[in-house]
């Protein structure tokens, strides 16, 4: 069963200058437990794709046509309330810049804890704390107790990104969107984060949509690769296929 199916999705931004087509007729499927890399130049619509599925686009953007299904059920027409039910449960997202993605006025422990509370309202305070510590360990953050009390500005980029991943994991998602999750990090940390993602996929069986413009990242981590250009998803296939033919993007 495909965990996520997108059919003929078209999204446009309606600015004062006119209509800008961000996604044109995009279709793809995501299988259970697979890592799909979505590659393309900056501005080709990769991020918009993720945000469209999550319905996190700003007011000026509208889904013109298309259908989105999760495990066979159509969610295209879901209201905001229904989407809130999916976000943080079925879907989860890791953002590009951890320093801006985290709330600067809250400690990281609080922010991870909030996700745990939302996902598992039945947990008691102590259980929640335990879960937060578990998650922090899982993503490779040491001294979880101390770290949890720190604020984002006190952490390095790599550590902060791990916190963002911890938050995303706390949602226990079926589909994780990683929107340029490693772009803002240096090469060594990048490698570590990718290893982490692979490990997590092994453990939890979640599917990952890995948005990146870096072919190295895709080659190393993905099962299948989708190529985008100017809002169109023009090619999708197994990672070996795509990279063997050395298709320029």
């Amino acid at each position: 069963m495909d965990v996520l199916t997108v059919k003929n999705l078209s999204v446009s931004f309606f600015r004062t200058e006119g209509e800008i087509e961000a996604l044109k007729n995009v279709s793809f499927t995501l299988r259970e437990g697979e890592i799909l890399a979505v590659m393309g130049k900056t501005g080709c619509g990769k991020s918009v794709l993720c945000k469209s599925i999550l319905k996190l686009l700003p007011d000026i953007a509208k889904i013109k046509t298309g259908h989105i299904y999760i495990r066979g059920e159509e969610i295209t027409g879901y209201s905001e309330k229904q989407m809130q039910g999916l976000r943080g449960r079925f879907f989860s997202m890791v953002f590009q810049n951890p320093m801006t993605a985290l709330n600067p006025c809250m400690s990281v422990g609080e922010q991870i804890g909030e996700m745990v509370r939302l996902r598992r309202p039945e947990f008691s305070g102590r259980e929640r704390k335990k879960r937060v510590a578990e998650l922090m360990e899982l993503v490779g953050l040491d001294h979880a107790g101390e770290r949890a009390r720190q604020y984002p500005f006190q952490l390095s980029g790599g550590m902060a990104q791990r916190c963002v991943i911890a938050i995303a994991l706390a949602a226990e998602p079926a589909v994780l969107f990683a929107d340029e999750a490693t772009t803002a990090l240096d090469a060594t940390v990048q490698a570590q984060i990718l290893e982490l993602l692979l490990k997590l996929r092994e453990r939890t069986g979640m599917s990952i949509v890995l948005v990146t413009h870096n072919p190295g990242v895709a080659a190393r981590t993905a099962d299948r690769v989708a190529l985008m250009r100017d809002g169109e998803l023009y090619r999708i296939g197994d990672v070996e296929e795509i990279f063997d033919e050395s298709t320029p993007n």
Partner: protein
Amino acid sequence: MTNRHLIKMVNNIGKFLISVLVLSVLVFTLSRLAPGDPLYAYYGERVEKMSVEEQDQARERLGLQAPLFTQYVRWLQRAVHGDFGISYQYKTDVKEVIAAGIVNTLLLGGLGFVLIFALALFLGLFCAWREDRLADRVVCRIGTVTSCIPEFWLSLLLLLIFSVWLDWLPSSGAYAAGGGGSLPDRAAHLVLPLSVVVLGHLWYYAFQVRNRLLEEVRADYVLLARMKGLSGRRVLYRHCLRGALPSYLSMMAIALPHILGGTYVVETVFSYPGIGKLAYESARYQDYNLLMVVSLLTGTLVILCNLTARLVNERIDPRMGVRSVSAGGEVRRL
């Protein structure tokens, strides 16, 4: 408390005391600049009937003949012991005169302050949530108009409507003469002046809250918060409000002396016997002793609140991990 904290605290207290001292010198000199005879304040019209000798004697008695510096030192010496002299107008100890007024002003200004900031927060949130929709636009329009109405004119208008035409509310004083100041009586006398104080300042702060929140709402972390499954409104209250809080608190700190000290217009129109009225009278009629104490009170409050605001900014906002551009701070120079 570590040594560093202790030193910093002593430093701050020292700066505070010096500021107050310099303030007292300034106020002392400034008050003597004004023309007009303090003798008028003391003796009223009788001054004109007094001979030059009698006037000189009176001045000698009041200690007004000595050079300015001596007068100041004399005042300082007495002030340190708690003796602030006698009000020329009221002929009683300055402290007594002020005590009566302070309660009234604290009621008016204090209540006003609390109301303003509670309502400002609510209004700011209301408008931010409905950004650019009809409700927001209407409230913004109304707010802008009310903020343009001069306080004294609003007072006059309200008096005209509610006191003169409708006769619903009393037109002056803090409580009915001889009434003893029961709660409903005081309340009735407070309604109009309080409304003016609140209406006069409310929109300014509500607008700041609204704009600050709108800035926060454009931050990336809002997207992550929504990704967690939180509704937009929850994100606004739980996350964005936190980000706006430090600046709100420091705004409150700076507003306090401004609101408390700015009641003199309202107090004058409503004949409300508060500090503001005393400040006005003492400035107008050269009641030096009273003027000194009132000015020092308000000035000290300003200095204190500025200090608090600065401390709030440095401590509470975690974003200020890097030193902020506070006045005279250690920032890169050009």
